[in-house]
């Protein structure tokens, strides 16, 4: 009897232990004691990536790993919502009203809850809504260091986030509403903004940490309340302190002694940071979201030299590298027993033709533009200059879509780029004859310090000469400043960097006749209509339809050509890690850091 009772108890205990461990399993998938090292080519330098100077991939990688958001780009790239962090919904189109809600139980790594105070701070910093108007901070800036002088007025609010009142969160100038449970915030845009999903994506910096430091309050909850009150009342004295701390408090070059400065709400937290050497990320025990990490500790080591990164991978000092793609790196990696993934970056190389105000004026004639586009040896450039770095590189055939992104294949099939697939010398000659301009001069602007562009220039020069073009060298080390200068050049060769898929980053500023990135005096009323329409279209499917029309119109107008997407290379030791699948947009390899799994040797 006694024995049976004991057995029953034992069985119960065993079963409940099993059940408990089964329950606990999804919370902790970490392989205990596992550690991995990743190489990155630039040291981390600021925990606030929203300042005008902190926006770099080196920071974004770390901040992305240590913080969650309402969504992120995957490797397609497409936007993935993370509902375990919070949700958002558009309440109305006009005026545009969006409600953001933090999920229950989401905490910062120090245990404080993530709530509306954080969202409110993120809004006030990114929108610049409470920045002192017409305040020229340079008058009170140390002429040497760029930091604020002692005479800086104490009641001036200045969040150095590069806020622009005509775009993004700058359009939300009214104080957002906070729900009673302090979990939600409702933003009301002054005018419709189609990329609203990308304008406000996370809780930003921990409000309690900012307020505790800026206002000298010890209790996190009281600090949050004080911050909300300060923002609501637009209390200039408090806001000045808060903005000042937001600007400068999170810039450090080594592990700060005050660890509250590295508080985050993501799968990992920073536990060590040795100047110029590495950042150690350790799984965040307070993280409750869906993206549970599998590796206990990830060290991001800073290795500038691409070949040094390859050898560090070979020597087992790092398990993942994503060095600058060079021919040497490609050769060295090919000889190793590692998995190499070719990919591409957000930047794409292209040639713009000056429609007006050019040096020679030749491109004012569409026939000459068409002829020049026919002789640009795009495939040859890719074959000779890009394929040695990345064997499967392809010519980019769209002015609007990123290869692989939704709409690219459809658009390429219809946009008319096929006419420029191969060099057509005879066709170009015929066009030039028709234009009555058999030997037009084309002065090309490009970076004289970039050897790859110099090589591209030579290939173009040789090919174009066969059709009668006299392509000359307008390169300069300060070519960037010359872009858009009237009368300085005829064509420009450079790369646009895409950091997001938002439509407001793409066609409207570049192809609209008034756009800030319209540097070639392109003006087509139909294009202006389309870009304006795109800037007001909320439906993603319809956005793509308009973008396809824009793409086709650009090729029909002989705008210029796209050549290639910058190649990227990622290599990892498949015997140590799995789950790496880099994406083209920042934070490239880190976007799925929670999927990285240590491979344990059998």
């Amino acid at each position: 009897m006694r024995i049976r009772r004991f057995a029953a108890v034992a069985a119960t205990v065993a079963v409940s232990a099993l059940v408990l461990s089964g329950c606990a399993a999804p919370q902790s998938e970490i392989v205990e004691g596992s550690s991995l090292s990743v190489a990155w080519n630039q040291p981390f330098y600021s925990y606030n990536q929203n300042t005008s100077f902190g926006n770099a991939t080196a920071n974004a990688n770390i901040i992305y790993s240590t913080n969650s958001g309402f969504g992120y780009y995957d490797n397609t790239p497409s936007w993935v919502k993370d509902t375990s962090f919070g949700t958002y919904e558009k309440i109305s189109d006009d005026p545009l009203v969006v409600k953001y809600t933090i999920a229950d139980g989401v905490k910062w790594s120090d245990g404080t809850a993530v709530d509306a105070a954080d969202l409110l701070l993120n809004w006030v910093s990114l929108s610049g809504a409470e920045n002192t108007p017409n305040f020229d901070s340079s008058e009170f800036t140390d002429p040497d260091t760029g930091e604020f002088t002692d005479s800086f007025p104490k009641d001036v609010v200045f969040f150095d986030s590069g806020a622009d009142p005509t775009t993004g969160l700058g359009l939300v100038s009214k104080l957002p509403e906070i729900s009673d449970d302090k979990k939600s915030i409702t933003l009301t845009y002054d005018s419709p903004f189609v990329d609203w999903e990308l304008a406000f994506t996370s809780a930003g910096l921990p409000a309690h940490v900012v307020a505790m430091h800026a206002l000298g309050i010890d209790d996190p909850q009281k600090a949050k309340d004080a911050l909300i009150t300060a923002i609501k009342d637009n209390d200039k004295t408090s806001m000045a302190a808060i903005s000042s701390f937001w600007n400068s408090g999170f810039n450090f070059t080594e592990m700060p002694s005050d660890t509250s400065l590295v508080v985050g709400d993501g799968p990992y937290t920073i536990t060590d940071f040795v100047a110029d050497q590495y950042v150690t990320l350790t799984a965040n025990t307070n993280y409750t979201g869906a993206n549970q990490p599998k590796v206990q500790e990830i060290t991001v080591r800073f290795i500038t030299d691409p070949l040094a990164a390859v050898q560090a991978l070979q020597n087992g000092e790092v398990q993942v590298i994503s060095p600058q793609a060079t021919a040497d790196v490609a050769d060295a990696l090919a000889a190793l027993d590692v998995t190499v993934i070719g990919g591409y970056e957000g930047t794409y190389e292209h040639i713009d033709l000056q429609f007006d105000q050019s040096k020679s004026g030749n491109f004012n004639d569409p026939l000459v533009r068409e002829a020049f586009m026919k002789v640009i040896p795009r495939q040859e450039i890719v074959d000779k200059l890009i394929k040695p770095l990345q064997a499967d590189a392809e010519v980019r055939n769209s002015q609007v879509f990123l290869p692989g992104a939704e709409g690219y294949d459809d658009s390429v099939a219809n946009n008319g780029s096929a006419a420029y697939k191969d060099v057509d010398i005879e066709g170009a000659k015929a066009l030039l004859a028709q234009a009555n301009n058999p030997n037009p001069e084309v002065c090309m602007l490009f970076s004289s310090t970039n050897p790859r562009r110099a090589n591209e220039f030579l290939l173009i020069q040789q090919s174009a000469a066969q059709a009668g073009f006299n392509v000359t060298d307008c390169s300069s080390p300060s070519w960037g400043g010359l872009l858009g200068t009237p009368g300085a050049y005829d064509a420009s060769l450079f790369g646009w960097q895409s950091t997001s898929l938002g439509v407001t980053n793409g066609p409207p500023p570049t192809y609209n006749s008034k756009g800030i990135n319209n540097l070639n005096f392109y003006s087509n009323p139909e294009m202006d209509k389309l870009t304006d329409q795109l800037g007001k279209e909320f439906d993603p499917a319809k956005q793509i339809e308009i973008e396809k029309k824009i793409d086709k119109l650009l090729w029909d107008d002989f705008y210029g050509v796209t050549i290639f997407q910058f190649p990227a290379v990622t290599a990892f030791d498949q015997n140590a890690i799995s789950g790496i699948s880099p994406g083209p947009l920042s934070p490239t390899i880190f976007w799925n850091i929670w999927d990285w799994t240590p491979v344990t040797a059998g």
Partner: protein
Amino acid sequence: MATFVVRRLIASIFIFLAATYLMYILVSLSGDPLEDLRTSTAPNKLQLIEARTMLLHLDVPPYLRYFIWLGGIFGFTGKGFFDLGVTVQNQPVNILLAQAAGSTLQLVTIASLVAIVLGLVVGITTALRQYSGYDYGVTFLSFLFFSLPIFWVAVLLKQYIAIGFNDFLAHPQIVWWLVPLLAVIAGLIWMSIIPGKGLRRLATFGIAAAATAAVLIYMDMSNWFSYPHIGIVGIIITLVGAAFGVTAISTGLRNRKALYASLVVAGVGAALWYPFIYYTTGLPFWGWVGSLVALVGVALGIGWFMGGDDRRPVARTAALVGLVAGAVLSLDRFMQVWDDYAQSGRVKGRPIATIGSGTPGLEGSLWVHGIDLFTHLLLPTIALILISFATYTRYSRASLLEVMNQDYIRTARAKGLTERTVVVRHAFRNALIPIATIVAFDIGGIIGGAVITERVFGWTGMGALFQNGLDHVDPNPVMAFFLVTGSLAILFNLIADLVYAGLDPRIRVS
């Protein structure tokens, strides 16, 4: 003397000011600091451009912006004296400079010391064995090293000494044919160094080859590469050898008092082996330095008491042997933790590192950190040594040869002094004079000259400061680099002149 120094310094300051102006303008005009923002498609790019322009005063032309920078140096910006401004990433350059200088000093100090000692020793021995096989061999090698580009040497070093050696450590068995090969090579080297003719040369070859083969076989049999050690036997052999060797050079073996004192010190060192190996786990860094100093002090005392009438040379000899004893004991102690270190979860059996200045997250005793520093310093140090080695060997060889042909050397020989006294007392000291100036220049230059070495070994120091600044067309960090290296060059030039005057009585500074 004082007028000379003051005059030199004042002239240097003006030259330096002009140089900084030139440097600032060159860096500022080397490109476009806004290039990355201009090609950005961020909607707020105009605001970002404005912010950076404000941060770095890009609205002021470089010709005038220099004076804003100079104002910071003289403390006109209200941020104290010697304010170097901020980088394009809004980091204070002063903090970056301190970090960079620290890591560069760590990298180049050991490399410089080893290169100087090794270069002098090899240079002197080649001069004494002029036109021997050894001399030709060293000449060939030093010119070879001198002409190798460092980035290429670095890649080779990483491939063979780091990756290759780490692979070897996984199964540390020496290939059988390597033993006779290395034995023959070692025999040839020793045969060409040690003088003699006919049978004696053959004997030298045989002994050296046999000893090498024996050591290699012992290493292989005892799994030495996994568990390196010197052991009490090795310590005794080394210390007795050191006692004879140091005495031979320092005072000559005829000085029996010096020899006995050295042997006593060697005995003390051997007696300390057990406590030093087994009771020093928690020893702090300064405790280690302190015990080394104490050991040398004890040796000095032994020499002093045993010295009799002629105390100074005996005490000096004994102290040198004490230093060797401390070094060998420490080496054995470091070797003790080698296996623990190599097999730790952080190092994972691949101890020789190719990048960085330390294993991330490694925790352990002084000895573990010492090993860690060694494995990280090894490759960059070799790379740096290979380059400066050539200069030191060539200069010291030429200098000693010149001195050896002087009349006073013939006089010294004629009056019957031993060859040791002639070489060490009369020739060597005078041969050092020109070397001193080269060493002074080199120390000034090497701090700034390790740019490429730092980059390829991921050792972020002054070189990285310089290069990152140049990449971003950001003059402030480049100027910080230039200030340090430029003032060091001026300072060491001055020191070299003063040292020359101090060493060579024929030269007077006035």
